[in-house]
């Protein structure tokens, strides 16, 4: 295998952490000489300044700027710091790039992503249909085009309900007023549809894995959340092994013929002990570095699979090992920030106030 040169996005590790920095670390764990390019949307993405951060970093336009702007910038970045593969880590990137694989290949950038139709089938709005085909339950969910429809669904279901956006955001709302405010915010950030979902009493479990694109599974592992942040993020989780979760995961892979990294989110019901599939995330989760530290290096396996078409079997991480998210301060120099800002394709994307206050 030739030396690994790879671009990764999602480098922020502070509040609401992203997986990119852990992916970079896991790749380095397997190939210390790997060249990692960090793609960032904000000069203050903390992973940029970590000791084991990327070798080079470039600013990108948000996916909302459009595919053409995104591809143009990717080509510029690749010309400046050549790389062969790109692992997008944010839902919005995956959704956009899944429809642009030929264009990426034409630029010399390899990606392995689920196709657009598969992403649509696995999206929040269609999840119940997919889950039924896979023999797994989902929470009762109604899809709304606007706040008015969401209010009607919530009235029928009874408060409280979860209000969710198409890609991000899940807010537990207790009243019509709270729903209207949360719905307007989600629509402004992510657009329609809105999902009105019943809240469930139970424990949260997540499964991470790699699909081979032919209905098989290259590897997976499951955790139970121990500490949940006020945004619902798992700030601590313990490795578990449940044959039921493994079977559900295999059925989802077989049904979708999923390509690449994924995270399945479940709630195990307090009353009936049944798993309900909450969400499918088309990317590595933020906790991807946890199994890598236990010998199950999913990013390295994925890079190997992309480069060679096969990978060594991933070991199953031992149950009972846990992680706790531990925030530390990374340090940087404003010169580093300014060089990133200068390269920002659209400076209006970024908070320049702090910079100008220093000058």
């Amino acid at each position: 295998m030739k030396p690994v040169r790879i671009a990764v996005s999602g480098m922020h590790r502070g509040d609401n952490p992203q997986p990119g920095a852990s992916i970079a670390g896991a790749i380095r764990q397997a190939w210390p000489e790997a060249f990692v390019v960090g793609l960032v949307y904000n000069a203050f993405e903390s992973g940029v300044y970590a000791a084991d951060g990327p070798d080079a970093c470039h600013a990108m336009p948000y996916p909302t700027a459009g595919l053409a702007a995104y591809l143009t910038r990717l080509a510029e970045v690749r010309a400046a710091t050549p790389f062969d593969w790109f692992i997008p880590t944010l839902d919005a990137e995956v959704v956009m790039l899944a429809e642009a694989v030929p264009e990426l290949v034409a630029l010399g950038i390899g990606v392995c992503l689920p196709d657009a139709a598969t992403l649509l089938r696995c999206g929040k709005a269609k999840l119940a249909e997919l889950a039924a085909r896979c023999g797994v339950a989902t929470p009762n969910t109604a899809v709304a085009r606007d706040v008015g429809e969401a209010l009607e669904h919530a009235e029928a279901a009874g408060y409280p309900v979860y209000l969710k956006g198409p890609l991000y955001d899940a807010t537990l709302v207790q009243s019509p007023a709270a729903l209207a405010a949360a719905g307007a915010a989600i629509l402004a950030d992510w657009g329609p549809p809105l999902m009105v979902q019943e809240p469930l009493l139970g424990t949260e479990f997540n499964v991470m894995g790699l699909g081979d694109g032919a209905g098989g599974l290259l590897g997976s592992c499951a955790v139970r959340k121990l500490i949940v942040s006020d945004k619902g993020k798992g700030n601590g989780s313990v490795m578990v092994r449940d044959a039921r979760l493994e079977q559900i995961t295999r059925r989802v892979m077989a049904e979708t013929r999923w390509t690449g990294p994924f995270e399945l989110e479940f709630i195990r019901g307090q009353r009936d002990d049944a798993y309900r599939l909450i969400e499918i995330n088309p990317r590595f989760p933020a906790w991807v570095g946890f199994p890598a530290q236990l010998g199950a290096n999913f990013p390295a396996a994925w890079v190997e699979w992309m480069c060679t078409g096969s990978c060594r079997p991933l070991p199953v991480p031992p149950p009972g090992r846990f992680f706790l998210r531990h925030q530390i301060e990374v340090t940087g120099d404003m010169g580093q920030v300014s060089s990133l800002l200068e390269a920002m394709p659209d400076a209006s994307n970024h908070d320049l106030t702090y910079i100008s206050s220093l000058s």
Partner: protein
Amino acid sequence: MQTDSMRLGDLMLNDRGFVFDPNTGESYQVSGTGLVCLRGLQRGATVDELVAELVATHGVGRLTVRCDMDAFLWDLKQLGWL
């Protein structure tokens, strides 16, 4: 009674009575006697054998041990371990 529950067999125990259920991610603390019972059940001992062991090692009447054992086994059933 012979037990061969997969979940019971999967339980991770340490000498201090800490029990981790890898299936659910739940953890528990059991007494020294509870630990003897769980380990015995894991290695395939019958309830009668465990009762006899506890009677011999704790100097308690068989009926008392059997009552406590039944209560403990009921808890294990509630947890889905038996």
